[in-house]
């Protein structure tokens, strides 16, 4: 039995470069494998509906400037034929296809016409920046922002994942999609929601989860830093508050670096869904918005409230909701005289008779025909929008009502008697 060797490495680094090369290769392979897995998983987990509106699809690429543009919320129809497309492909779409796809993907708030239950418990609130609502997509080393009609706003390098051609070892699968508002004054993208991050889809996650990730990821990425060579526009997070008395007050009156355009309310448990949803609400008054009452394309407030409705086969005039709400009816003679067809969007003014409610439901509307709507406009107004605008002109839902609802909710919460009126 010879003595045992006790020599130890002397003046040597702990691992050789060869070992380092092996390990780096293994790391790269493991990372690539994980990405390939994630990509495969996304292929089904995020299939989205691609609404295929109207029988005569309009070539949106030939979009002309609107003649009678009204500054207002877009109203889309979430129903319709479904062409399945997954967001991984969507991030790679180009040109008209991309416009078509993104035009239908934003989650759109309903207007707040009454105060939702459990506001304190289930809702977030934040001050909405005034500006252009858009999707920001980073992929393949570039970043593109698209307006709500799908058309391109900017193409630029950014610090978002795979948003510029600088970083190493970014895979082609890495991309992200953010729901933003571009604020002209400070040239900043205010991020209001996160749809995809570094290739991971957040569609089927709750708002609570999305906001949590959005806050941590966006800062990590460096996208919130000042513009630089590889990062043309600053991104900025918006302070989101739980909708208690203090949160609402802060959102309503608190200082923000942007021009406010109303308040947005998000239900904490809501998933990101395309089109109109009652789980996200917008509310505004003169204190927190310059645009409370719809204006026409010259920026003037019309004397009478105007609404856009869709004409149906049977002559009924309906909103864009699903199911649609009927606001009135045109007789066949009038239809023929004016050359209207089923499916046309028609503009009306609300006459002095106004809207009549019975048991909180709209029963009839005193409408006056104004004319056909420009063909580039795709959707009628939603019910909530019409009602909100009507209320603004007549008996608005005020901030006091919102605060008051908090008080009553908590008072009633202790004594849950069902009132039968």
């Amino acid at each position, binding site marked *: *039995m010879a*003595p*045992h060797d*006790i*020599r*130890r490495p*002397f*003046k040597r*680094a702990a691992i*050789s*470069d*060869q070992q380092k*090369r*092996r390990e*780096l*290769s*293994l790391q*790269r*392979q493991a990372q*690539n*494998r994980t990405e*390939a*897995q994630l990509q*495969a*998983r996304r*292929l*089904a*987990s995020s299939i989205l509906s691609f609404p295929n509106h109207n029988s005569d699809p309009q070539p949106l690429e030939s979009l002309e400037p609107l003649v009678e543009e009204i500054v207002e919320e877009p109203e889309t129809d979430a129903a319709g034929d479904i062409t399945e497309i997954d967001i991984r492909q969507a991030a790679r779409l180009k040109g008209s296809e991309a416009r078509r796809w993104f035009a239908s993907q934003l989650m759109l708030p309903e207007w707040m016409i009454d105060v939702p239950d459990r506001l304190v418990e289930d809702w977030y609130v934040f001050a909405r920046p005034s500006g252009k609502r858009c999707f920001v997509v980073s992929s393949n*080393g570039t970043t593109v922002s698209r307006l709500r009609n799908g058309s391109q706003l900017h193409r630029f390098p950014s610090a978002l994942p795979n948003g510029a*051609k*600088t970083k*190493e*070892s*970014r895979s082609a699968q890495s991309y992200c999609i953010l729901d933003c508002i571009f604020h002209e004054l400070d040239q900043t993208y205010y991020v209001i929601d996160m749809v995809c991050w570094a290739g*991971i889809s957040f569609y*089927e*996650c709750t708002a609570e*989860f999305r906001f949590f990730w959005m806050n941590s990821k966006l800062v990590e990425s460096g996208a919130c830093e000042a513009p630089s060579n590889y990062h043309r526009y600053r991104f900025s997070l918006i302070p989101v508050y739980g909708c208690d008395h203090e949160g609402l007050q802060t959102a309503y009156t608190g200082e923000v670096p942007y021009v406010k355009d109303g308040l947005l309310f998000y239900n904490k448990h809501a998933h990101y869904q395309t089109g109109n949803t009652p789980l996200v609400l917008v509310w505004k008054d003169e204190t927190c918005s310059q645009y409370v009452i719809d204006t026409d394309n010259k920026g003037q407030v019309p004397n009478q409230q105007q609404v856009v409705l869709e004409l149906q086969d049977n002559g009924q005039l309906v909103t864009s909701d699903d199911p649609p709400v009927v606001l009135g009816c045109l007789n066949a003679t009038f239809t023929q005289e004016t050359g209207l067809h089923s499916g046309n969007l028609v503009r009306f003014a609300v006459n002095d008779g106004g809207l009549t409610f019975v048991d909180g439901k709209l029963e009839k509307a005193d409408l006056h025909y104004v004319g056909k709507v420009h063909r580039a406009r795709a959707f009628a107004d939603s019910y909530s929008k019409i009602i909100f605008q009507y209320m603004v002109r007549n008996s608005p839902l005020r901030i006091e009502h919102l605060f008051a609802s908090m008080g009553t909710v908590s008072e009633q919460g202790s004594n849950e008697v069902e009132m039968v009126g």
Partner: protein
Amino acid sequence: MEVTQVLLNAQSVDGSVRKHAEESLKRFQDENLAGFLLSLSGELSSDEKPVDSRRLAGLILKNALDAKEQHRKFELVQRWLSLDVGVKTQIKHCLLQTLSSHVHEARSTASQVIAKVAGIELPQKQWPELISSLLANIHQVPVHVKQATLETLGYMCEEVSPDVVEQEHVNKILTAVVQGMNSSEGSTDVRLAATRAMYNTLSFAQANFSNDMERDYIMKVVCEATLSSELKIRQAAFECLVSISSSYYEKIAPYMQDIFNITAKAVKEDEEPVALQAIEFWSSICDEEIDILEDYAGDFAGDSEIPCFYFIKKALPALVPMLLETLLKQEEDQDQDEGVWNLAMAGGTCLGLVARTVGDDIVPLVMPFIEENISKPDWRQREAATYAFGSILEGPSPDKLTPLVNVALNFMLTALTTDPNNHVKDTTAWTLGRIFEFLHGSSMETPIITQANCQQIITVLLQSMKDAPNVAEKACGALYFLTQGFEDIDQTSPLTPYFQEIVQSLLLVTHREDAGESRLRTAAYETLNEVVRCSTDETVPMVLQLVPVIMMELHKTLEEHNLSSDERRKQNELQGLLCGCLQVIIQKLGSLEQTKYAFMQYADQIMNLFLRVFAFRSATVHEEAMLAIGSLAYSTGQDFAKYMPEFYKYLEMGLQNFEEYQVCAVTVGVVGDICRALEEKVLPWCDGIMTQLLKDLSSNQLHRSVKPPIFSCFGDIALAIGENFEKYLMYAMPMLQSAAELSAHTSSADDEMIEYTNLLRNGILEAYSGIFQGFKNSPKTQLLIPHAPHIVQFLDLIYMEKDMDDMVMKTAIGVLGDLADTLGSNAGSLIQQSLSSKDFLNECLSSDDHVIKESAEWAKLAIGRAISI
């Protein structure tokens, strides 16, 4: 057959006689194994036969029982076990008898053969009388029998594992060994044999070390033996102490004061072999405490089974001066000689370990020594001071060290340029490297490299790269760590202005006539690799210019023919370095948008070079070129398909390389790269690849570490070719299932086994993941349904065993999601019925690890859908 003569002939100086004898021995063995082994054992035991034939007979016997390669060893064991019992009894009788021979060599050979037989038979509960008959020998009078028996017991304990020897026997063996070591034993030979036997017996003595009286006695005997007048006994006794320090760390507190005195005396006064063991004792205590303190700092705070006794901290005031003394005992040329291990080296290494163990506390104890010696005329003092400084740079906090380094840096730079002594310069350059390694980088609060000193540092290092090879090699090392410290800088690195000069200097070094000495060329290429890895947007265009240069170097090595074997070896080594360098370059340039396109212009030529390198067929080159091809495939994507017809045979060769398992492992990784690059275009090659992978898995020759990556590779293939994986299901699925079941039966005895089980399970799970995702949305999904129940069971088992690491947790919860995603409602009820899916999912959802959480969120979605359908 007259075996004696044949055995003698087999050792003849005449080659043809030897060859003939070897052939007849082989024939004899093949024709009549039992007769062959019997006559060898007869030869060994017969005192009438010549020593030479007896020794060879014993050696052949030994080789008939054991081999290095696992699979060969297994065959030999089976062969012995199936021999006729009578034959074996007779052989064993001969062997035991030989222990009483007067010929020392015969006894010694026999004791080794006995240990081999014991290694086979004791675990099978055979040869129960062996230990008693050996112990009976101990009481015999003749000294040489006693000596041989103790030696046999020592070998036996080395050969068999402690759990096959009953405690009763252990007690008797220990008693015999301790008795033999006792100072009252008159024979030096017996004491030496007993002390060496003690070394191997220690691992059997768990129970005895838990008994205070017995432990005290063993320690007393061992410590006494360190004071023997015989050097070999002292050395063997210190070896026992070293072994005790790691096996029984938690039991030695009462003896530490005595041990310190003994070791201090040995380090000061004893001969080098003994002094080295004495230092090793303290290094080994450091190893133990570093491990324990790491556990303390890790996830399982306070959970460590063994508490830290802080022996090093307590001994510090006496230990450090003792080690510093040794630093002054350098040998003249120790830096030029690879094989040297002396007191100064052992002491310095131990000092470094002590610094890692105690941290800041060591600094005030070492600084006076450095200050006193660093400027002395005697080079030994300057070198010792520098080495001491270099040794304590890992362990203490940057807060403590940075001010010292700021003062020392300038001194070191001057010494590296002007000190007349090679040894001092070597250590100075090494120390600079340690400074950059441990105190320079983006995580440091106070940078030690500034705009002001950066240029000087680089100038000095580049200058030193022209010094003697050993100094130049250390300068390259320092430059390596200097570069590494800037790896996180994206754009303007402080190295940018010197980039070109650094690259050129390194290339010059690789061309030095004497670059083969002191591994200088290797160091230069390794540093070049790090420079490439850390290049930034500004400097990466210069890396692009490096591509044709390295390609040309590689081309040159392929043009030289008719080389001597030594030249050929060097050429192979160089090819390995160049392929390694190209791999790093490919990885860098191929992953950057900025350079990718320009770099791809070279892809064809580079691939062509690699294919030519394969023709050389040397293991290391093979591996490096293979690694590089993986990176190339990743960068090339689908276009890699055009190289496949020519490359495929080498891929297959790599997968067949059982012996050099690293090569096989690397090749398996490259298959994954190719799958991801080619996607469905890899299909034509899959039959061959799958066949090879399945062969690898069923081979018991292949190193077990390659198996987990092979399973992962199944997943890569399935993901790439989708439902075309159908035809491999009937092979892959049973293999995965049996591996999964096997992994359930491994008793999680030791950490190493737990780690391997986790690796294996991760591989299996990645395979399932890839297969499920590959089949998704295919009409053939139902082929997977029959496999789902056992996969869910496997997941249950993994969850309930609680041994999984984060990686397995992430992969496992992902598989649950994949199963639900692909099988939909077919998996829904299975998951709902499973024992632990819900708990598992909830645990993952609340994990702090965001990767696990991410996987879990996804699984939750998929399961939610599957259940709701």
